């Protein structure tokens, strides 16, 4: 699995993702500077968290115009795997690769803490190692993480298996009490119709090593391992 971690000016989880892909998963990884225009040879392109362009204007709104994004469109169209985490998810929404938009958290404050998310679709390249309905213990860290889409669009997404994660209780119960930011339908992660582009607000790279307190995030990466070993993409 050859991976690229895109570095926008202001990305700040790039090192973290690089570390997990390279040292925890043992995959070849490159940093991809946002002005680069070539994604040939990569199996997975990861858009990391952070504050691309300072989140000025609106999270992800400026980064979508970076040269690499044109290339990323083509890469995704050809079926390449794209994972956007936190700010990376916001960039994917702004660029139209994923449906919906982000609003400010309903408390209007930045929230950093562990939450649980329920796996709604485990037939994606990113979720194959999870059980359907499993609750993952995973951190969030964002201020603009309130996912929004209109109800019709969400029900379409649900039918197509595009709602991948929802905020839930440790026992996988979905309720507004477990919704940290006011997201429509507790949505924490969505994918495109083809299922090769995933965006999620929680940070799997922050919980992929035992020393950090949870290894649930590693399930996302080990799902990709299955892809790397078997199915061609």
């Amino acid at each position, binding site marked *: 699995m050859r991976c690229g971690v895109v570095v926008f*000016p*202001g990305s*700040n*989880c790039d*090192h*973290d993702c690089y*570390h*997990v892909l390279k040292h925890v998963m043992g995959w070849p990884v490159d940093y991809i500077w946002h002005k680069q225009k070539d994604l040939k040879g990569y199996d997975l392109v990861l858009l990391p*968290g*952070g*504050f691309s*362009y*300072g*989140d*000025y204007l609106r999270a992800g709104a400026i980064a979508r115009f970076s040269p690499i994004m044109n290339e990323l469109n083509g890469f995704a169209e050809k079926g390449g795997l794209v994972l956007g985490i936190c700010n990376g998810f916001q960039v994917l929404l702004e660029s139209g690769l994923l449906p919906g938009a982000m609003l400010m958290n309903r408390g209007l*404050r*930045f*929230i*950093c*803490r562990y939450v649980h998310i329920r796996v709604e679709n485990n037939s994606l390249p990113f979720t194959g190692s999870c059980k359907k309905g499993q609750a993952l213990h995973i*951190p969030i*860290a964002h*201020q603009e993480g309130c996912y929004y889409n209109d109800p019709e669009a969400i029900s379409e997404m649900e039918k197509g298996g595009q709602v991948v994660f929802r905020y839930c209780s440790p026992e996988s119960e979905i309720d507004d009490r477990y919704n940290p930011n006011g997201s429509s339908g507790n949505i924490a992660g969505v994918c495109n119709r083809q299922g090769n582009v995933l965006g999620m607000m929680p*940070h799997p*790279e*922050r919980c992929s*090593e035992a*020393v*950090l*307190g949870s290894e649930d995030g590693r399930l996302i990466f080990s799902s990709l391992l299955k892809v790397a070993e078997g199915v061609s993409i």
Partner: protein
Amino acid sequence: MTVQEIKEIKITQGLIEQHGLSAEEYEKIKSLLGREPNYTELGIFSVMWSEHCSYKSSRAILKRFPIAGRHIIQGPGENAGVVAIDDDLAMVFKIESHNHPSYIEPYQGAATGVGGIIRDIFTMGARPVACLNSLRFGPLNHPKNRYLMTRVVAGIAGYGNCMGIPTVGGEVCFEACYSQNPLINVFCLGIAKRDRIFYARACGEGNPVIYVGSSTGRDGIHGATMASEEFNEQSEERRPTVQVGDPFTEKLLLEACLELMKTNYIIGIQDMGAAGLTCSNCEMAGRGGAGVEIDLDLVPAREKGMTPYEIMLSESQERMLIVAAKGREDAVKEIFAKWDLHGVSIGHVTADGNMRVKKGGQVVADIPALALTDNAPAYLRPKIMPDYIDEVQSWTPDGLPEPKDYTSVLERMMGSPALGSKAWVYEQYDHMVRINTILFPGADASLLRIMGTPYGIGMTVDGNGRYCYLDPKTGGMLAVAEAARNLVCTGARPLAITNCLNFGDPENPEVMWQFDETVEGIAEACRFFDTPVTGGNVSFYNQTLGEPVFPTPVIGMAGVLQDCRAYVTPWFKHDGDLVCIIGGTGGHLGGSEYLKAEHGIIKGMPPRINLALEAKAQKACLRGIGLGIIRSAHDCSEGGLAVAMAESCFSPYGSIGAEINLDKSDRADALLFGETASRIIVSMNEKRLPEWERLATKIAVPWQIVGHVGGDRLKIGPWISSPVERLRHLWERALAGVIDQ
């Protein structure tokens, strides 16, 4: 104004006073220059000789700090201190205040405080890996204090989160004296290779002086002077002296500087913080024993028509000054261009020792660099013990009514902002980014792994203004002891400290006495624990309309854990485990949170500290953790034993109760809520007891078994019995309930 017009501005008595310079200081300027200064030079002297930059009232006293030790690579005098971790790695850390700006404009004041301390760390060649902060506000029942706290926390979060440097812990305290003068102290720690440390020195005649980062604007002019004054009714008008932060640009500056630091092009580097271009140029020249000549026409400016005075005194953020090796200018500029930042040669190093500033082809300032730095005035200000000391110290608990219902006292205290959970604050900080944080905020100290090594780094900030108000020397010692104890409770061995000394007006002899005594206490404890002072910050003039804040030293301490997986948390783990107290015994009520919260009294002597006992308690705790005997360790401090026991029940992974029995010697309130020093609450499996007994006997530390873990209530003797979930709910809602009302 043209350069010529500015040069012709007449220096009057009034102008000198406006610049915060005394008549004697002005005479000294004339003798150092051998002539009258011009207007620009007057401004330059004014900021460099301000208390904020010159430490003129504190320099002589700070010399008492122990600054050397086998781990110390760089002590005070540079942008930050450097302490060895092993033969290869070092940690670089410092604490700084941004009190005055944060009162005037809390969001930007706090944000730029964070920006400033982060620059101090990466200037030295270190990758910043964590921030802490120590915040003090007035009581939250006043809306202004809620506003200040909300905006300060948002400002710290806004800057640190965007930078991608985790804010991993800190402290928040409340006291009436901070209402008009909150204390905002920020700490940053970075990791560097020992052989890749960079210093702020200009040398090598002809080497280019390169300006990098943001453009210079008219913001923050005279910020350093503002920070060296007392507040009054007009302080709000000072808002334009507060800088505006741009964390995105600083993130780029950080990455560009670290990229540049992999090369050999840098001779010296310093950030432009207080007093901007002025301070960075003359300090680098002064330290390097050289001079610099710069041309202000080359400085990237945000707007046209800025005078030399404004350019030299601007405190625009996110700027650095680099002295590069001759011939490497283009390579340096190329790196900054990649990150879309300015990189402009604005001058060169000279041999004559002067800071020479040109604009429009004319020399607008020409001052010996050392006149601004080493030769700045230094005073031994008069000091006198304040009258209040005798009165507060002679207080005794005789006649103090004892509460009838201790359970409700504990519940009230757990639900107060002072002792309640600080999650409302730290959940706004990204405390996990860079995936090194092992021990999150809420424990006794924060703990990070160092990737690629087995080590963990522990860090903490601690202070207690109330103790220092009652007895500054003891208060200073207690602050160092508590910081060390907090580190030890995680398993990390303390190595060194940085400190932020927040005091009132140094020209007031009573304040000066508090300062002198506090420094004495800190110095004595640091010598005893072999944790030298690597630098820090003095913030004077923390007073409004003549009323100083409590003398408030904040100790930032860092230490190392040899195996980052072998740490311990404060929380009880298993049903049936024994609960023990290591160290001090008895109950001391003076200066306690209980006395203040329940009786409205801030009096008495603070707890006595016996440094030898403290050292034994810490040694026993560290050994016990190292041998895997101790399963949880928690420092017993503010709120006393009952509060510390309750906190030990609130694990992030779930609550668990405990049953504690104590021998009553004196008053029950003193036993439960007294803040006797040098106490650590630990829990262990009973099977390990013989091993523990041998260890404790060998170290000759007092200890006692006081109960065991289990059940769903916290019971302490006949006095307290409360469901843990109830206590926890009160504790969790304490801050959020008041602020979001």
